[in-house]
């Protein structure tokens, strides 16, 4: 193989004209660099959103009750009293369902430790932390027996713990909800803000039965959280639920809505995919511009070095040897340009991310694509000049002044 010799020859030719080589690469450097920087910043933002979506829980299907229409007045989601605890129990018996929690929500002014606080009080089943992928930082979750006995037990979020029990361990303390003392058995791990900027830790979770019978006097639930065994069965679980509820409610119209986490995720990824296409377009344009620069310089280089080509042919270089030599030169230019562009792009995005406190994700896939496509651009833009060089007649090339 003479490839190594060709690489050495190409390297020497590029070093001979350092300034020109650098300027030629600049098009590729800027193109690749800006794309990599943009991609790592946007995928950082996308990743943040995705993390928030998945913080809602994994493989979760949510059943909302339908909207309540009274005359001309139409309520929103969850306003119609259509979902019951029995629905939830029926759903729990479906295959591939690993957790179910009927959910009742209410805002209450609560008292404890001589302080008061307005917070969201949720009625849930003991499956709730598992469904929401939410850990207990201290104490325990209330149990099934608490649900059955309408126990006055509660698990509180970190914000509630901080507001009502500053510097005090809340476990074993009581919190008064509508003047009923609830025993605090556990504190939920801090979860932070959700997609919509709500503080998820500003909450108190009690058994749904206690919520429905002691706090509010409701016979229906707002929604039912269902956890599927995994993401693959989530769609079939969703269909099973729809079918089951239609049968149970004996209604022609669907008086409930079933949503899954995947749909939300898909909405988010659709946005980032659109962004990706946009960036790919920009990348393609800048690579083409860079490629034209390389082709231009390679054409100049072939003309300049006609005599050299003649000498090489006279001593026995075949057309293919000359072709490969110039191709390697072009590919080296574009690949080095791509490499510098990638390094520059990563550096710039990290700096911007650091100064602007934005998360960045180094897009390894894009780095691979950027490097490969800059090499391909080198081949494409170098081919015509290299082919031209290889077709020179050695006699004419030797006489060229």
């Amino acid at each position: 193989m003479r490839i190594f010799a060709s690489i050495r020859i190409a390297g020497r030719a590029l070093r001979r004209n350092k300034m020109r080589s650098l300027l030629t690469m600049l098009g590729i450097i800027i193109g690749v660099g800006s794309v990599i920087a943009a991609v790592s910043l946007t995928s950082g933002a996308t990743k943040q959103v995705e993390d928030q979506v998945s913080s809602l829980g994994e493989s979760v299907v949510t059943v909302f009750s339908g909207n309540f229409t009274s005359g001309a007045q139409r309520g929103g989601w969850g306003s119609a009293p259509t979902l019951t605890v029995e629905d939830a129990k029926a759903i729990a018996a479906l295959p591939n369902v690993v957790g179910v929690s009927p959910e009742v929500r209410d805002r209450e002014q609560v008292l404890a430790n001589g302080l008061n606080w307005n917070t969201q009080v949720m009625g849930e089943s003991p499956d709730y932390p598992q469904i929401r992928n939410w850990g207990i930082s201290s104490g325990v979750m209330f149990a099934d027996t608490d649900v059955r006995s309408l126990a006055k037990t509660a698990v509180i979020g970190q914000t509630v713990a901080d507001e009502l029990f500053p510097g005090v361990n809340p476990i074993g303390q009581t919190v008064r909800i509508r003047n009923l003392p609830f025993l605090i058995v556990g504190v939920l791990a801090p979860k932070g803000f959700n997609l919509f900027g709500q503080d998820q830790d500003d909450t108190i979770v009690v058994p749904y039965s206690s919520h429905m019978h002691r706090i509010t006097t409701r016979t229906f639930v707002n929604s039912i959280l269902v956890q599927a065994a995994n993401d693959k069965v989530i769609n079939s679980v969703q269909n099973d639920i729809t079918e089951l509820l239609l049968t149970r409610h004996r209604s022609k119209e669907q008086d409930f809505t079933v949503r899954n986490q995947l749909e939300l995720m898909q909405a988010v990824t659709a946005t980032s995919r659109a962004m990706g296409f946009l960036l790919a377009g920009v990348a393609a344009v800048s690579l083409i511009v860079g490629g034209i620069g390389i082709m231009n310089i390679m054409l100049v280089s072939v003309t300049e070095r006609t005599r050299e080509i003649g000498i090489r042919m006279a001593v026995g270089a075949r057309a293919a040897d000359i072709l490969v030599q110039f191709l390697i030169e072009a590919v080296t230019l574009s690949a080095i340009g791509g490499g510098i562009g990638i390094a520059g792009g990563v550096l710039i995005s990290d700096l911007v991310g650091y100064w602007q406190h934005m998360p960045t994700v180094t897009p390894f896939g894009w780095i691979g694509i950027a490097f490969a496509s800059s090499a391909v651009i080198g081949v494409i833009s170098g081919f015509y000049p290299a082919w031209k060089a290889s077709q020179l007649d050695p006699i004419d090339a030797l006489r060229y002044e």
Partner: protein
Amino acid sequence: MPINPVIKLDAIEKTYHTGEVDVHAVRGVSLDILPGEFVAIMGSSGSGKSTMMNVIGALDRPTGGHYWLDGIDVSTLDRDELADVRNEKIGFVFQGFNLLSRTTALENVEMPMLYHRERISAHEQRERAMHCLELVGLAKRGDHHPNQLSGGQQQRVAIARALVNRPTLLLADEPTGNLDTQTSIEIMGVFQKLNDQGITIIMVTHELDVARFTKRMIILRDGKVVTDKAVEPRSVAEKELQLLRQEQQAVKLVKE
């Protein structure tokens, strides 16, 4: 047993089709060149000697006749095969030296080995290149670039490059055309020394003085051989150099 010729030309013709007129540059040249010969091909411009040079150098194919180089019918080869023949059988020395600039003398000499069909190890390339530089008396200048060398030295590097693939034929095109008298004689001395070692040399020149250093003179006119004779008396580079030095001392051009 008759000795096989290195070069056998049989009714070689070369016609260029330029526009409406056909130019007959070579019209039927037949000759044999045996191993160890030192031949000068002479002729004024337009005599067809450059065309002959291109054909013999496997840079161009004849339009008629046959050309055997070392037993191979070169007139039937394609582009790549011609390149291989040039690489393995022929060493070129040009008027304008044609070294690669910004490339050391040693790397220039190594260059033809890069294009050899069989891979030559880097170590062997270096050794062979050094050996050839020694043959032309430039072993110590291997790391010099062409622009750091005099014309005569550059031509010696070119000769070393021509020798490095152990060709059957050394082909020189006006090798002294760009050199002064003394350096020309020195370069002819190098050729004579190489020829004494058995290397076949063909040289194209238009200078009679230079042709006198060879053993056989072939003169072309209008694309035909008009003279083909042994060189008598033959100049010997060492003696000519001595004579030149005496003359120079006589006019005090150089120190005694």
